[in-house]
C-alpha cells in the first residue's frame, strides 16, 4: 500500500542540471565560434560588435562576441562614454540577474567542467566565504576606478602622463591578464611563436611584454587550482563581471521562490548549491541573492518540489 502511494506521489523531475550543461556547452561554442574558422577555413565569420555581460575576452582569438566589461574598459581608454556596454548590464541584469553566469558564460562552463571532473560539492568555512566574496567587488572597483580616472584625465594635461604610467594597462587592468585572454589568446600566441622557431620560454609576444604573460599565466593557474579546490571559485570570489551582475541580481525580475507549505527544510538545496547560498534563510516569497546564478541545481534537488523559478 505504501509503495503504491509512493509511486503515485513520485514526481517526474525535469533534468535541470543536464539541460543547463547542454545550454552552457552551446553557449561556449557560440561565444568561441571563430575557432571553427581554423578547422573549416572556408568559413568567413567576423566578430560581432555586440557586448554581452559575461566574462568573454574581447582579445580572444576565437571570440564571436566580446564581454561588456572589456568594452567598457577599452571605450573609457579612448575616451568614449560606453553607453551600449553599460546598457547591456542594466537590461540583462534587471530582468535575468546573474542568469548568464550560470547558463552562458564560457568561463562558468569551464568552472563547471572542473567541478564535474572533481566530483562532490565541498563547502568552505562560512566566515571565510563571506570575506572572500568581497574580493570580486574590489577587483571591479579597481578596474572601473582606473579606467574612469584615465578617461577623465584625458580631458586635462595629465592624460598622456597617466597613459604612459599605466603602460599596457591603459586598456584596462584586466584586459590582458584575465583567464580567457591567456587561454584563448596568449597561449596560442606563444605556441605559434614556438612553431616559427622561437624559444618557448620567451613569453614576450607581439601583443604583450613577458611579465604580463607570466602574470596572466599565474592568474590562469589560480583559476584552475581554485576551481578544483572550491566549486565555481572564479565566479564566487574573483569575477568582476559577476560582481556587477550581482548588484542587479538583488533586484532582478527573475529569481526563485520557496513554497513553505511543501518545504520540509531537509537542506538538500543548501548542500547542492555551488555558490554556497543559505537558501533556507532567505525570504520564501522571492529569493534574490547577489551570488545566485540561477543554475537551478537546488530546484532539481528539492525532493518535494518546493523551489521554483519566479518571474515577478
Amino acid at each position, binding site marked *: 500500500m505504501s509503495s503504491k502511494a509512493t509511486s503515485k506521489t513520485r514526481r517526474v523531475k525535469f533534468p535541470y542540471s543536464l539541460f543547463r550543461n547542454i545550454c552552457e556547452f552551446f553557449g561556449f561554442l557560440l561565444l568561441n565560434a571563430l575557432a571553427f574558422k581554423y578547422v573549416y577555413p572556408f568559413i568567413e565569420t*567576423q*566578430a560581432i*560588435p*555586440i*557586448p554581452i555581460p559575461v566574462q568573454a575576452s*574581447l*582579445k*580572444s*582569438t576565437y*571570440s564571436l562576441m*566580446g564581454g561588456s566589461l572589456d*568594452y567598457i574598459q*577599452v*571605450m573609457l581608454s*579612448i575616451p*568614449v562614454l*560606453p*553607453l*551600449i556596454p*553599460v*546598457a*547591456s*548590464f*542594466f*537590461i540583462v*541584469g*534587471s*530582468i535575468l540577474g546573474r542568469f548568464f553566469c550560470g547558463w552562458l558564460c564560457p568561463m562558468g562552463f569551464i568552472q563547471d567542467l572542473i567541478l564535474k571532473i572533481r566530483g562532490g560539492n565541498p563547502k568552505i568555512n562560512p566566515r571565510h566565504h563571506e570575506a572572500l566574496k568581497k574580493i570580486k567587488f574590489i577587483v571591479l572597483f579597481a578596474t572601473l576606478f582606473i579606467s574612469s580616472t584615465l578617461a577623465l584625465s584625458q580631458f586635462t594635461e595629465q592624460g598622456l602622463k597617466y597613459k604612459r604610467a599605466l603602460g599596457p594597462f591603459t*586598456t584596462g587592468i584586466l584586459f590582458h591578464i584575465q583567464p580567457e585572454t591567456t587561454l584563448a*589568446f596568449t597561449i596560442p600566441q606563444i605556441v605559434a611563436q614556438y612553431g616559427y622557431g622561437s624559444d618557448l620560454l620567451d613569453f614576450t609576444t607581439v*601583443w604583450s611584454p613577458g611579465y604580463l604573460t607570466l602574470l596572466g599565466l599565474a592568474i590562469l593557474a589560480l583559476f584552475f587550482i581554485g576551481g578544483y579546490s572550491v566549486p565555481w571559485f572564479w565566479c564566487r570570489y574573483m569575477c568582476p563581471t559577476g560582481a556587477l551582475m550581482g548588484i*542587479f541580481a*538583488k*533586484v*532582478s*525580475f527573475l529569481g526563485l521562490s520557496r513554497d513553505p507549505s511543501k518545504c520540509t527544510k531537509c537542506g538538500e538545496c543548501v548542500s547542492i548549491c555551488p555558490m554556497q547560498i543559505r537558501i533556507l534563510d532567505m525570504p520564501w516569497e*522571492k529569493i*534574490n541573492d547577489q551570488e545566485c546564478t540561477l543554475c537551478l541545481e537546488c530546484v532539481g534537488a528539492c525532493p518535494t518540489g518546493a523551489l521554483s523559478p519566479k518571474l*515577478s
Partner: protein
Amino acid sequence: MRRMLASLAFTLGLLMLTVGLYADQLDHLKLIIKLHVP
C-alpha cells in the same frame, strides 16, 4: 521597492541603449574589434 528598482534599471538601460545607438556607438564597437581582436 525591489520591483521598482528593477523597472528603473531596465528603463535606464533602454535609454542608454537608445542614446548609444543614436550616437553611432556601434561604429566605435566595430572599430574596437578591428583594433583589438587579432
